[in-house]
């Protein structure tokens, strides 16, 4: 049976040589590929064919990679399971009755099943790290501004980054080396990463590394996940690292802050889909506001409508100060807690996901419960930091991911630490 990892399977060849020559890459379907349909997992964009390539796609082709298809995803990246895709859910290759995580579930499943050597995902609140953890592969969410977002169909601009998914830390770092660096078409990119060699940092040397473990990230985790997490830390300690508990009270508010900010940005970003310039128009006539509202009812799924409406509500007169302004305060508080933690430790560690992969269908009825599963990943996006998820054992035969968070542009540190977990 197919895993449904791809929405569109088609091969785009890259240049003849380069660091990724001979490698196949799955590209998440919210990253623009010239001449190749890019749906964002949405019926709204079922027939949308971008007239240009995203910067990361140009870089992949230039590095010799062969793109093998557009990977399935939660609609517009809005989900933690890949079940909100208008093209049906992707199955987890480790256990096909389970979800692969999301929103980059197709990317992670393709890599875990060997349907692609490598993949690109996007991470707005954990959408690379969650599916990497659930499928037993490696995923990196880069520092905000390390990788160009030009050609990425925006969901929440201030939070999201494109990043690599791969079977090993070194492979993920090598793919990050290809896509990292400044781009004059994305004003938020920085000079960091221009001549990077993150792959060389995958040397497994953690002697003298200090690891902070925020108690807030471990409390309430599934027992089997917690056991695998501590076993991984003991293994790093045996290799010369030391760990200590740290406290980050702000992260208790991170899920609320993240969803208010992400939904608010989504409500603005997705206003462009009215079926006139692109997307499904439905061909409705009459008052144009009504025509647009009907086109958007047809084109968007429930989770997307839910987030657009909640974002509109959070930004509306009378509620802006209560929700959006407070969420920005919480975001600054989370950044401050990380800054303080990094005065004493080199990396911060947590289970990537507090739970093992959900069963298919398990989480669709209760959106709030699904949001709470992102508790350990969203603080990283709020603080603009880099983080990696690396496989760290199993619970009942299901993969567990260890998340290692670094300071701003500290990609080498998290790559080095994660490579020791593979030893």
């Amino acid at each position: 049976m197919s895993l449904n990892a791809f929405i569109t399977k088609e091969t785009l060849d890259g240049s003849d040589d380069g660091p990724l020559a001979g490698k196949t890459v799955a590209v998440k379907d919210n990253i623009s590929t010239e001449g190749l349909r890019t749906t964002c997992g949405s019926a709204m964009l079922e027939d949308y064919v971008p007239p240009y390539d995203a910067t990361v796609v140009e870089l992949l082709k230039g590095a010799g990679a062969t793109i093998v298809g557009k990977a399935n995803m939660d609609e517009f990246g809005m989900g933690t399971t890949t079940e909100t895709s208008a093209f049906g859910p992707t199955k987890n290759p480790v256990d096909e009755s389970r979800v692969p995580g999301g929103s980059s579930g197709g990317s992670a499943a393709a890599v875990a099943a060997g349907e692609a050597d490598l993949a690109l995902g996007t991470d707005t609140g954990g959408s690379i790290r969650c599916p990497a953890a659930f499928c037993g592969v490696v995923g990196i969410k880069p520092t905000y501004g390390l990788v160009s977002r030009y050609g990425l169909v925006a969901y929440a601009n201030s939070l999201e980054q494109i990043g690599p998914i791969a079977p090993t830390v070194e492979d993920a770092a090598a793919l990050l080396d290809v896509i990292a660096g400044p781009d004059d078409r994305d004003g938020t990119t920085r000079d960091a990463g221009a001549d990077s060699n993150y792959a060389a940092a995958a040397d497994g040397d953690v002697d003298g590394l200090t690891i902070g473990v925020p108690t807030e990230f471990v409390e309430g985790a599934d027992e089997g996940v917690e056991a695998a997490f501590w076993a991984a830390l003991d293994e790093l300690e045996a290799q010369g690292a030391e760990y200590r508990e740290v406290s980050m009270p702000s992260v208790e508010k991170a899920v609320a802050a993240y969803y208010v900010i992400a939904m608010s940005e989504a409500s603005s970003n997705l206003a462009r889909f009215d079926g006139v310039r692109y997307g499904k128009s439905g061909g409705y006539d009459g008052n144009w506001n009504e025509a647009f509202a009907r086109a958007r009812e047809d084109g968007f799924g429930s989770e997307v409508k839910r987030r657009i409406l909640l974002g509109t509500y959070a930004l509306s007169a009378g509620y802006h100060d209560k929700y959006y302004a407070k969420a920005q305060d919480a975001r600054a508080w989370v950044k401050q807690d990380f800054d303080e933690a990094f005065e004493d430790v080199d990396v911060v560690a947590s289970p990537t996901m507090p739970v093992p992969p959900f069963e298919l269908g398990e989480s669709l009825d209760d959106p709030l419960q699904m949001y709470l599963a992102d508790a350990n990943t969203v603080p990283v996006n709020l603080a603009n930091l880099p983080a990696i998820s690396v496989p760290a054992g199993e619970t009942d035969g299901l993969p567990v991911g260890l998340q290692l968070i670094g300071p701003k542009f500290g990609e080498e540190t998290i790559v080095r630490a994660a490579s020791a977990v593979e030893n």
Partner: protein
Amino acid sequence: MSDTPVDADEVRHVAELARVDLDEDEVEEFAAQFADILGYFDALDEVPEVDREDELVNVMRPDEVRDGLSQEEALSNAAETEDGFFKGPRVS
């Protein structure tokens, strides 16, 4: 529960602002879910005021002409076009 209760009328109002039609079942479902979700967001009331130390700088570049999409490319995904323009629904 939230101190900002959400009823069906409020969901309809927000849906209108957002230009998203909803059927009646969705309105009822969203009203119940929004009460839960907004109730959870009330936790933000306890967030202390924090000094924001954003090091924001403007990123400038020379304003130079460069190649963009051709008119044909720009129109290639539109459902309806006329004489090289996008064609939308009537204004009223």
